[in-house]
């Protein structure tokens, strides 16, 4: 038996599949329609003698408008449906578990905030929304889990993200779907969806590692960030406690929400995002941090935010 459908194992899959069936239906309907009409005409109006003269038929405005308007209406419906679904699928639920992914030729390096790292394997709990934040160390990759119907390019120099909520346990393909060089087709792996209990065991097992935030905190001290970014705001730089996830007014007049990208930008091109009332004196850390350390620092800044919230 030839498979015709991939497993549908995330909360996103159902909606995408429904739209897919609708589109398949439309495609089949019009293909069959056009083919049948052509075949019917082919037989009915075949040339019966060499001297046959075809009667003249006149262009009908009604017909022209009909077959302009009906496809237009179908397109409007499809656009609205598909876009609403897409906007919904693009927005991670606020209480998502986070996982970080670094793509490099030709492997997936995956890091859990609790500390464990894996290569080409991703363990996630079932029934919990998971947000994946991704970056690439070299070329463009693409993080693709067909069973979840999610896909996003992984770019060097910035963060992209996607989210999914697995709905059944099992083992599913993880592919790189953007051509990335010689072993592109071997940049594949497995996603293991586990019962939450098993997942907790898996996290606890293996060698003990520090959490990403703890590693980030060490970097924060090691690179001397803490000498300016003092938590009570008296340092030369602004306090970073509680900034994550909140809108921040920048010196250029722009207001941006502090997210992974903004923190990254602040570390690499500090002057481009400095806050009003502070001197733009922070040096760039371009070339001093690898992608993994960057993510750890970000995790640390994020953890400062949640500590703040917890205190309140």
């Amino acid at each position, binding site marked *: 038996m030839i498979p015709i459908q991939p497993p549908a194992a995330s909360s996103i899959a159902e909606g995408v599949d429904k739209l897919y069936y609708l589109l398949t239906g439309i495609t089949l309907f019009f293909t069959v329609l056009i083919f049948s009409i052509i075949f019917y005409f082919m037989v009915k109006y075949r040339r019966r003698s060499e001297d046959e003269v075809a009667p003249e038929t006149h262009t009908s405005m009604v017909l022209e408008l009909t077959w302009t308007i009906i496809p237009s209406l179908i397109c409007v419906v499809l656009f609205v449906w598909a876009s*609403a679904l897409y*906007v*919904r699928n*693009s*927005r991670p639920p606020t209480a998502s578990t986070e996982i970080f992914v670094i793509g490099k030729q030709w492997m997936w390096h995956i890091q859990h905030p609790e500390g464990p790292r894996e290569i080409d394997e991703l363990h996630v709990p079932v029934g919990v929304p998971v947000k994946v934040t991704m970056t690439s160390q070299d070329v463009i990759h693409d993080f693709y889990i067909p069973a979840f119907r999610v896909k996003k390019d992984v770019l060097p120099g910035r963060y992209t993200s996607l989210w999914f909520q697995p709905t059944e346990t099992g083992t599913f393909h993880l592919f790189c779907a953007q051509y990335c060089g010689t072993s592109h087709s071997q940049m594949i792996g497995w996603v293991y969806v586990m019962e939450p209990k098993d997942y907790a065991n898996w996290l606890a097992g293996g060698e003990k590692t520090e959490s990403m935030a703890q590693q980030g905190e060490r970097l924060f001290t090691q690179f001397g960030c803490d000498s300016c970014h003092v938590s009570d705001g008296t340092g030369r730089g602004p306090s970073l406690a509680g900034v994550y996830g909140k809108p921040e007014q920048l010196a250029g007049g722009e207001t*941006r*929400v502090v997210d992974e990208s903004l923190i990254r930008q602040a570390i690499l091109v500090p002057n481009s995002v400095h806050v009003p009332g502070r001197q733009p004196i922070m040096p760039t850390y371009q070339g001093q941090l690898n992608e993994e350390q960057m993510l750890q620092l970000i995790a640390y800044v994020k953890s400062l935010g949640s500590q703040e919230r917890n205190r309140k």
Partner: protein
Amino acid sequence: MSEHSGHTGHVVPVSTYLLVFFALMAGTALTTGVAYIDLGRWNTVVALAIAVTKMMLVVLFFMHVKYATGLTRIVILAGFFWLGIMITLSCADELTRTWEINPAGWGGIIPFLLRLF
């Protein structure tokens, strides 16, 4: 050969050429001078406005578009229109990436439209 006048083309008087020439020289001086005055973001607007004016002068007089057929004008406009498409739609991506997705789903369209103005 009744189209004779048509294909020898319009002879522009030297005085017009000179007038346009001096306007272009003055425009260059002006745009250079304005750059030394702090107008904030308006420096960009003024510099581009002067550049566009200079371009119009060159196109209309030196390139004889003032005396050309409608077809020529359509061709030129098409060029700029397509350039406009390229810039606008590329910017539509590059400059809206940091905008957040509004949690209200379709409501996300509204701030998008508002920010266009």
